């Protein structure tokens, strides 16, 4: 294999043996020339450049024993004992505030009908039952609505990423006045009330024969997630030093090659974060789904809302379906947890 045909990653590895395989010159620059430690935890696609996280390692004293742990303590481990306790209390309070509504929803889904409307309300069920789950999942159209929600969210997420990644890259790398105007304009679209664009959008989709389809709803959802995605990806691209790309181009990469082989793997955590936000924006969206779907493409948030009618509120079934509907996003978040944390860190180490 000639030098020209040698995969660039392998060449990096050969030229920079002090760094782990696939890290190469660019990784060396990242690790030594910047403060980008912990930039990309997690696995990157095979063949792509991977920058291993440079986790802080305990310093070793002359006697071979680790130095005192407090020396490197950070976050909730930092400071005086009193401060730490206070921080833990605040953290616990915040967790209760955020977690309680979901826990209450979960417990309510296991209550009997009369228990769900108890006055005053109770937190735990007096009698545990799965009746609400049977009612909710047995309702016609529920399974179809789950499939529709998944289809819509996946398409919307793909569309957002396909459009946001090159847009954000172009804006951050070329820094043209029009780019700045574009990114501000993207933000402005978030300031328009969704209902203001929902109704004309529904009419437009109907005019082009896309009424009541997941594609139409996905496009509508992309109008919500795309501005956010562009802004998020812009901040992630900003954090990647130009030196990294220049090193890649010195080694023979084109602009696109550097983007694909060097920059994208470095910001993969950021892409995961963006994908999660785009997915969630679509998965939980209600108004556009209400205006644009009917029989064929109705999503689960509309079905959940249907448990509240003019003639009563079926709390038990509503909470049961909401609990089931939240499982996929919880699993997705847990699966991508490392990428998300890495992505968050990436945004904080702009160097």
């Amino acid at each position, binding site marked *: 294999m000639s030098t020209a045909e040698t995969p660039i990653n392998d060449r990096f590895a050969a030229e920079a043996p002090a760094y782990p395989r696939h890290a190469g010159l660019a990784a060396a620059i990242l690790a030594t020339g910047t403060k980008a430690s912990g930039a990309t935890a997690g696995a990157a696609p095979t063949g792509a450049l991977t920058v291993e996280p440079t986790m802080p390692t305990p310093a070793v004293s002359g006697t071979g024993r680790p130095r005192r742990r407090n020396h490197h303590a950070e976050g909730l481990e930092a400071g005086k004992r009193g401060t730490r306790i206070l921080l833990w209390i605040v953290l616990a309070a915040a967790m209760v505030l955020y977690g309680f509504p979901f826990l209450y929803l979960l417990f309510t889904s296991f209550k009997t009908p009369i228990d769900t409307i108890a006055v005053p309300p109770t937190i735990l069920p007096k009698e545990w039952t799965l009746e609400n789950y049977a009612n909710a999942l047995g309702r016609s159209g529920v399974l179809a609505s789950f499939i529709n929600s998944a289809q819509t969210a996946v398409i919307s997420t793909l569309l957002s990423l396909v459009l946001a990644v090159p847009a954000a890259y172009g804006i951050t790398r070329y820094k043209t006045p029009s780019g700045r105007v574009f990114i501000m304009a993207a933000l402005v679209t978030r300031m328009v009330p969704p209902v203001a664009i929902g109704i004309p959008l529904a009419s437009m989709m109907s005019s082009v024969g896309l009424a009541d389809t997941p594609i139409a709803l996905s496009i509508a959802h992309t109008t919500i997630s795309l501005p956010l995605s562009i802004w998020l990806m812009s901040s992630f691209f900003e954090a990647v030093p130009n030196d990294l790309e220049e090193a890649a181009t010195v080694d023979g990469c084109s602009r696109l090659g550097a983007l694909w*082989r060097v920059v994208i793997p470095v910001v993969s955590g950021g892409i995961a974060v963006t994908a999660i936000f785009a997915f969630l924006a679509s998965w939980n969206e209600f108004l556009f789904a209400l205006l644009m779907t009917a029989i064929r493409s109705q999503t689960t948030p509309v079905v959940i809302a249907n448990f509240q009618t003019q003639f009563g509120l079926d709390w038990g079934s509503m909470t049961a379906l909401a609990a089931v509907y939240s499982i996929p996003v919880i699993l997705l978040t847990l699966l991508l947890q490392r990428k998300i944390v890495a992505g968050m860190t990436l945004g904080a180490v702009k160097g």
Partner: protein
Amino acid sequence: MSSRTTIFRIAALGGLSTAVLLAATACGAGGPAATSGSAASTVNVLVEAGGHAELTGVAEQCKKDTGITANFVELPYDGMFNRLSSEFSSGNVSFDVAALDSVWLPSFKDAVQPLDELFTDEAKKDIFPALVKEANVDGHFIGMPAWTNAEIILYRKDLFEDAKNKADFKAKYGYDLAAPTTWKQYQDISGFFTKDGMYGTDVKGGVETEWLAHVLQAGSPMVLDENNNVVIDNAAHKDALDFYTSLVKSAPPGAAQVDWAAAQNLFNQGKTAMTRFWAHAYRQIPKDSPVVGKVAAAPMIGGSAGVAGVPGPWYLSVPKATKNSDAAKKFVKCAYDHNDLGIESSLGLASRISAFEKYQDKAGYGSFKPLIETLKGQATATRPATAKWQQIVDTVLVPLLQKAVAGGDSATLLAEAKKQIQDLLK
């Protein structure tokens, strides 16, 4: 192979995959698309989630009778008005028949077709007079009543039949304890049962219909007269409001926030001895409720003008923009012909007098006689036919009630409300 070629190949593959995915998902999982006029033998029926059950049995029968299949587009009440507005204004409708709340008829009168041919003399005799009047907008009948409701009195018959309660009540008030028929009786009974952690009634500050029923009972049209003059500050409105707020002392605390759901919960939990509530609630008491089997129904109470209630009907209408008019009208007629099938549903309502009468003596339908009597009441009337009605309710009437039940001066509040409504109607 150069890296650029690889990138382009991957991009092409990604694009192709996305295209395939998009194509594959063009068909949603819920069945055929909701497009008006998709097939002559199929009609898409837009209905509020609670009304779906009402029409399910009807739709099955209509398929047998006419060969028309009904696909239901089910939406939550709060979003249905937006959806209807959106589709009517665009001229592209995804439904052939819509079940419309009575308060929406004036707003959509220009977007739906006249159904005059369905309102024969025979039909008009079998529909409650207030509904016949309401369905007629600008000289045309634009909606066929599918089901209707009205507030009646639900009360705890076990408490009312208790010997000690009967004796104590007679000793205190000088007349027999029985289902109330007048405002005074309702006040007395509410006060009597407010003891030992229980309340005589509820007071709903979050909804306006009940107070408006009392306005009718006091002999005045609701809020607007026949010429659309604002009459909310007249004596009848004040009397009704004073009666309404007089019950606060016999009701659970927090009246300003009590709405239909809260009031229903309180009654089903056994916290209130009486409630003025929509008739369907009689059949919806949970099986594990402490009051199940202990509830009886009576007609709405009467004031100086007699018994009166505010009907809550839903109408089946056919949009002008549908391409399936014939099938849609056939379905509406069929739904009227088999109106009684709605009574077998979980909601258990109908719109024809004959349908209610057919079931009124059957076990479990004890609310029907009081409902019929209330709907036939001399003073019973539907809400004013103005497109601004919902806005008036949300921005004026409900805030007015919330202030009134919290102790506000009724005359002052009504005078302020009059000005606000006049501004809205300008």
